[in-house]
């Protein structure tokens, strides 16, 4: 009940749910490569030339999708630019900031350092995938409640790191929380509240 009311507040104040809605619309589209020939999965045993588009299957936020990707495309690029999942942020693109954190088979990883072809056959979860219909998921809810951000740029990555932690370990200690979000930098220095939000998220997930 309390959760429902909180969510309503969000919908009008900060547009979280609207953004989630738009992104999931984007996810309905299948990416089309700009150029090159299309390699079907049956032929996928050989070497893929640079401009060849390879066809890969990903389970993205619970939905199976077939995509055409170039070998050099990162998962980050494909999720944002081809599927419109803008909850995945671009930061450093070199594994240093965590803004691009997504779950691959429930484990937090950096989208910028993962080739889309390498994720073939995996289950990918992005921020958009944490929505429960029109409601915020528990980790998102906890970040709002604990005011765990200022500019918000690092927030989706932080939330995904916490989500990954809680999927592996429902009752983390404070030290474990600090350790597991240490791959996500926050330039606004909202760390104290991020730790509190992770703790609150664990509570919300259990209830």
């Amino acid at each position: 009940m309390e959760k429902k009311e909180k969510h309503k507040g969000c919908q009008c104040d900060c547009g979280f749910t609207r953004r989630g809605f738009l992104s999931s619309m984007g996810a309905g589209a299948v990416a089309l490569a700009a150029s090159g020939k299309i390699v079907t999965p049956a032929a996928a045993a050989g070497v893929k030339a640079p401009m060849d588009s390879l066809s890969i299957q990903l389970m993205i936020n619970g939905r199976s999708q077939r995509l055409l990707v170039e070998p050099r495309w990162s998962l980050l690029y494909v999720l944002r630019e081809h599927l419109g999942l803008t909850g995945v942020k671009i930061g450093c693109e070199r594994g240093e900031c965590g803004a691009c954190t997504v779950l691959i088979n429930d484990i937090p990883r950096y989208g910028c350092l993962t080739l889309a072809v390498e994720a073939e056959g995996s289950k990918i979860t992005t921020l958009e995938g944490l929505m429960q219909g029109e409601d915020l998921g528990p980790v998102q809810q906890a970040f709002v409640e604990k005011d765990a951000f200022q500019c918000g740029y690092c927030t989706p990555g932080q939330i995904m790191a916490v989500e990954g932690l809680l999927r592996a370990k429902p009752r983390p200690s404070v030290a474990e929380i600090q350790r597991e979000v240490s791959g996500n930098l926050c330039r606004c220095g909202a760390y104290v509240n991020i730790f509190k939000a992770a703790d609150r998220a664990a509570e919300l997930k259990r209830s």
Partner: protein
Amino acid sequence: MMPNFSYIRPESLQEAITHLGSADARLHAGGTDLLPCLRDQVFDAKKVVSINGINDLRSIQETEDGSLRIGALTTITEVAENPLIRERYAALAQAAAEVASPQLRHQGTIGGNLCQKPRCWYYRGEFHCLRKGGKICYAKGGENQFHCIFGGKGCYIVHPSDTAPPLAAFAAKINIVGPKGKRTVEAAVFHVEPSKDVTRETVLEPAEIVTEILLPRPLQGLRSSYRKVRARQAWDFALAGVALVLQFQGNKVTKGRVVLCGAAPVPWRSYEVEKVVIGSALDDATISRAAAAAVKNAKPLEKNDYKIPLFQGMLEEELQKIKNG
């Protein structure tokens, strides 16, 4: 966006070796070091050969003679969390837990951790330095606060791997396959000093692949630890560090190895410390003598002499800790 490359994910080692034999082919394990190098054009790849289809490389197994076999594709997280490694090879588990960030540990592999490229900022930047085949080392007269105090000759990097020092200290072996077949190399000599060849980091020949790491059965009374000093709590490379693997009889050290990290272009075995501690009980006097011996032959650069008291103090602390158990 990275420059274009072709891509293949073979399912056997033989196929992978064949593909790696072509010009400018690069091996992809977790990709956490390869992709940033390609993006920054530290080197090029015409073909990326992913070994992730070779499932045999992905396991931790105890062998019949009591040694432990770690497949090259085992993730750093798996190494850090494996109960057998934590129990018998504590320094390795501790080192793995100190590598990079959680996300990178979930993705990066132990094989890739040993084969990663240097972190010297000139090397990673647009400087055609000695190690890249150029004419000079920019770090020598430049910004060298994070460079080496031992073993620098021409090039002054510190080896970035946290797992390499404990592997060298445990006398681990590294299995390699390549176009000419299989071979085994001691972890302690897997990395190449710049005085031998400034353009390569490891003994790997073209198209060779690290397949597994073998840890010998631990001796009776063995204690081990890994310590890494860094500038902050979030991910960072070692400013100074040490892997201690010592065999105790009572409070006397009977055997062992001491390998420094953040010190030299390769994991740096400190024979000086070993000489002082082996055969002695680790009393306070021995510990301070050992720590002083560790840095006696150091050759700091212009901006990194802070590493000398850092190594000395850190070694005193670590030796005290391991003595107490």
